[in-house]
């Protein structure tokens, strides 16, 4: 059997596919963070908690309202996004003029409160959520047995990432959004409702986190801790990609997922630090991040 550094090539393919799946989550989550940071200049530490909210919303919809996976995938980002809009309207926007540190502290506190409340009600061991019946079972790729649901995760994440990128970089709405961050006063003078745009942006970022949460629910236990376990990695992804760079966040998300997968094969103990090692190296060599424009 052909091997690379002692690992059979076939096994390596399998691990790379898994890396792509984890990368899908990193990409979706870091995309949301990048959108919020790029346009609002807010470092949204509540992103992990909002990811967790998405998973719990899907669980609650299923268990209390009988709403299945597909509808949850559509409804949850809207519900959690609206919640995000409410948070932005009532609290977060008061901090735009203050030092960015305040926004960070506020969202961090918010995350702790959300997690604490959910832990109190649901416990740390979490709740089970089964994949939708159309996606149960596994497909044989020749080199591995891949659960159908995981294939769907890659597809869904790619579609969502590219749509959001296109929305911001290629549409008129996106152009207005970007203009509003460059010079809010001028854009407002053109008759654009800038505060509403900012609310929409935050809700979009939060909605993306919730979307990722629903995607994750059938893979992981739906647990209050699921957000805090992933969010630190996602921040590293954003830093490596370059703060605020939309495409950077997406590409780096997938790339680091793959890097992590390779580490798991060769030295699994280091799999949770490899991303931070990469981050440190990137910061040393290119402080603005791989895709960042300015430092």
């Amino acid at each position: 059997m052909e091997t690379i550094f002692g690992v059979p090539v076939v096994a390596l393919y399998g691990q790379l596919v898994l890396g792509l799946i984890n990368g899908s989550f990193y990409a979706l989550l870091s995309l949301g963070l990048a959108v919020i940071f790029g346009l609002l200049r807010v470092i949204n530490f509540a992103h992990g908690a909002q990811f967790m909210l998405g998973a719990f919303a899907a669980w609650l919809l299923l268990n209390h309202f009988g709403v299945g996976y597909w509808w949850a995938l559509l409804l949850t980002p809207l519900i959690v996004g609206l919640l995000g809009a409410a948070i932005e309207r009532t609290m977060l926007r008061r901090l735009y003029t203050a030092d960015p540190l305040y926004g960070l502290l506020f969202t961090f506190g918010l995350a702790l409160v959300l997690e604490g409340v959910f832990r109190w009600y649901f416990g740390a061991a979490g709740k089970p959520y089964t994949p939708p019946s159309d996606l149960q079972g596994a497909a044989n790729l020749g080199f591995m047995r891949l659960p159908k649901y995981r294939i769907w995760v890659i597809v869904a994440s790619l579609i969502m990432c590219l749509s959001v990128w296109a929305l911001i970089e290629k549409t008129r709405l996106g152009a207005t959004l970007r203009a509003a961050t460059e010079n809010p006063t001028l854009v407002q003078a053109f008759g654009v409702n800038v505060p509403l745009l900012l609310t929409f942006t935050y809700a979009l970022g939060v909605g993306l986190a919730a979307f990722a949460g629903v995607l994750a629910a059938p893979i992981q236990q739906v647990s209050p801790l699921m957000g805090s376990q992933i969010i630190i990695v996602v921040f590293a992804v954003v830093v490596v990609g370059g703060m605020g760079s939309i495409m950077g966040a997406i590409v780096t998300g997938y790339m680091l997922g793959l890097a992590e997968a390779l580490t798991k094969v060769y030295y699994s103990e280091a799999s949770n630090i490899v991303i931070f090692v990469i981050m440190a190296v990137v910061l040393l060599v290119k402080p603005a991040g791989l895709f960042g424009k300015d430092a």
Partner: protein
Amino acid sequence: MNRILAASLAALVMGAGPALAQVSDGVVKIGILNDQSGVYADFGGRWSYEAALMAVEDFGGEVAGAKIEVVTADHQNKPDVASNIARQWYDVDKVDSIMELTSSSVGLAVQGLSRDLKKITINTGAATTELTGAQCSPYGFHWAYDTHALAVGTGGALVEQGGDKWFFVTADYAFGYSLEENTANFVKEKGGEVVGSVRHPLATTDFSSFLLQAQASGANVVGFANAGLDTANSIKQAAEFGIVEGGQKIAALLFTLAEVHGLGLEAAQGTTLTESFYWKRDEESEKFGRRYFERTGRMPNMVHAGVYSAVTQYLKAIRQAGTDDGDAVSKALHEMPVNDVFAREGRVAANGRMITDVYLMQVKAPAESAEPWDYYNVLATIPGDQAFMDPAKSGCPLVQ
């Protein structure tokens, strides 16, 4: 007021009656130190604190004329945080004994620190046999279970069923190593072999990579030497990747009622596991379980019931010794048999290990379960002497 004054005066004059004067600061303070926000928050967590409160209430709230208090804190699974809290509890808050101590690295750190201060620790949450092995302490007790018991229970059962080739997915810290080593030794002793193992960081969400390696390894048993939410995620994803369908058996080496509840019977059914307590074991345990449920909305696992037992036994020891002095209480704990809702005819060995029966369980299928929390079929009772390591072979310097 006058009566109290007169009484204390009389007590002073008469030398106070040995009991009252002997309890330091006039209050017996027990600290429940564990993970209340991380992956083991359901494994022990504030539910252990509730069990301790229940034990104190059942005991009458007083021992040797002194009031009993219970304090609790979250150690976040970090030995340094745990040591700082323990030190503050002993030095400033006058805590007399610390219990629960989930997570082996924390357990070892706090037991070591308490040994120097001659304070009693009773560990019901951590698993490593080191606590009663090379690092044993005359003031340290290990209550509910340990990695040896888990290895004998779950490992033994699977080897008997023909599971002779093992692949381990192991949590990367003291507990995981201890559990893997104990199980691997046991499997080899029985003629089996270990074909591979992989280590993962605590609080990992994605186990698929490790499962793929397990699948390719040619093992017929995949042993999860991890705990709490990590094991729940492992089992859930093992089902997703068709580990069992592919003919491999799953051994959840440390899996309790709390995690089975979180995972749900659909995903957990058929899993073999070892616990030293099940609320449906007999009438007495069921009565206890239902009382506990009324308080907390959940049934106790072996950690929670173990805390209840540990607190009760500690208080009984103080009553017998007439003091909360570390040496005297330790002596009483070593001498007294343990008979309560948790342990039947339990005894404490010279290395601090409490020896009692453990049970091999299999998780029921959803259709078999008659009510919520009715999750186990008891497959076998493993007598304490087989379940726990022979103290003479434990490597503990106190056993000679």
